[in-house]
């Protein structure tokens, strides 16, 4: 009951706040600028190089209304989400233990970090051709590239977080009789958790960027399919719209990816807040 009351109060104070209205006004001005720009083709006799080419927001909105009733669009969204989830979960499952092991063991760090640092600067998209060759199916190659997008960010954050734990916590734990396992479980793991959350939130954003590009380059998964329906994903959906000349569909696809990325980051942030209650204010 209190939580609901708190949420309502918070929402009210946010909606009546200056920042909220500033944001609303900014979005309205932006949409007006876009709408008039794209409808009028030229402003005071000057053609706008960008705005006049882009479909108007009202047209995009109409297209989105049509798309949400289109099962093939949802299938594309589902495929991209699935790939992001697969790649992201694999990155978490492999990245967190690897990062912890590197932070805990000097020997392991010495062996693995140089290799890690050589591979890390390679952009995930540079892996696409190699991935297509190495992995048996296109699905796996896209998931692999997606995995790489989140993997390095997560590992770097875990290492940094674990190494930044104050040495006094270890001294205190040892002097109270903690075993090594106990220290790992009750000091290192919770001490690294905030960094894991940060790594995951940043990582899933990169994952969306990577999956879309990988889908565009690889031709959208299942071989032989034409169009987004069979196995494209949102990246291929946009690419297909471009090939087909449907500009409203391109923009609608872009917006839906933006929304999907924002949603997944927001969900992770919520999970993170729930897992690290000590970082909350008050």
């Amino acid at each position: 009951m209190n939580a609901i009351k708190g949420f309502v109060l918070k929402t009210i104070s946010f909606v009546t706040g200056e920042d909220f209205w500033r944001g609303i006004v900014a979005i309205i001005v932006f949409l007006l600028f876009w709408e008039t720009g794209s409808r009028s083709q030229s402003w005071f006799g000057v053609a706008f190089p960008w705005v006049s080419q882009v479909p108007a927001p009202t047209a995009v909105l109409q297209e989105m209304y049509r798309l949400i009733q289109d099962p093939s669009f949802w299938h594309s969204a589902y495929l991209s989400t699935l790939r992001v989830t697969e790649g992201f979960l694999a990155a978490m499952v492999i990245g967190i233990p690897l990062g912890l092991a590197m932070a805990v063991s000097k020997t392991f760090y010495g062996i693995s970090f140089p290799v890690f640092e050589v591979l890390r600067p390679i952009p995930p998209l540079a892996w696409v051709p190699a991935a297509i060759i190495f992995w048996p199916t296109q699905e796996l190659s896209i998931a692999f590239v997606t995995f790489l997008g989140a993997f390095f960010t997560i590992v770097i954050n875990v290492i940094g977080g674990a190494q930044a734990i104050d040495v006094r916590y270890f001294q205190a734990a040892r002097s109270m009789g903690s075993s090594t396992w106990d220290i790992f479980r009750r000091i290192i793991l919770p001490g690294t958790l905030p960094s894991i959350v940060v790594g995951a939130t940043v990582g899933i954003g990169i994952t969306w960027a990577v999956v879309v590009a990988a889908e565009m380059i690889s031709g959208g998964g299942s071989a032989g399919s034409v169009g987004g329906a069979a196995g494209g994903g949102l990246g291929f959906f946009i690419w297909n719209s471009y090939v087909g000349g449907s500009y409203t569909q391109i923009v609608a696809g872009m917006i839906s990816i933006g929304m999907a990325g924002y949603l997944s980051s927001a969900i992770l942030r919520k999970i993170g807040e729930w897992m690290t209650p000590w970082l909350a204010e008050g």
Partner: protein
Amino acid sequence: MQQMTQLSSLAASKPLSVGSEIKVNNVSKSYGADNFAKEVVHNCSFTIDRGKLTVMIGPSGCGKSTLIRLVAGFERPTSGTITIDDKPVTGPGVDRLVVFQETALFPWMTTYDNIMYGPRARNEDTAEMRGFAETLLQKVGLSAFRKKYPSQLSGGMQRRAELARSMINKPNVMILDEPFRGLDAMTKKLMQEYYANLYNEFRRTTFFVTTDIDEAIYLADRILIMTNIPTRVRAVIDVNLPRPRQVENVVESDEANAIKMQALGLLHEEAMKSFARGSKAAADFIDAYSKRVGKQ
């Protein structure tokens, strides 16, 4: 306040003296190699009696923290020996608990979980220990804050939680390195009262380092006055004021004032020496001392 007075009178009826005896014999400690070695502790000897509260006071930067680390076992002396119950100290041990200047509460645990850390680490999460945790929470005035995280506590509350977290392990020796430094005057006084009550109740051997002479007299059974660096014991003053003590009574008593003037005189001499060697911190002390003595 009423409640605390009751607690301390209750404690007075059962003065238990427990813990270990620490002997520091001709200990020296140098840092750096051979010709560049800087001696921080020189031929230092003293005894910390079983169940007594021994306060070490000396000019800032004189090597008090080094002695703490030696007794805690984090570092080894260059020469000399430190024994606890006649057994030489070779490293950190669960019989000694150190409370540092800054709080080292685990930020991801609630007050209660922090206090129960030690028992749980040793698989002693028993009803008896949980009961002891409740007692301690009540004694340090944190019962209502058991579910709060350290970041949600005030500075004074954090120190109290940390005292409780140490006390629950019933260490043979408690080592406190300026635990109330950096607190405002009122909070500090409150902390000293809380701490004195805890000490009266449990009477563990305690090694307490401070730079505050009033704090030293209020808390100590014995005060060790240290020399300037390289440090050794300049004087030992026994404080025989009856326990439980009240801050107000201690400040006003003649005996306490006599001890204070004696200690300040010795500290002044040490400060003069370190000033002669170019210590800026000493200048502030000398200034403050001459104003105070001049007034009286």
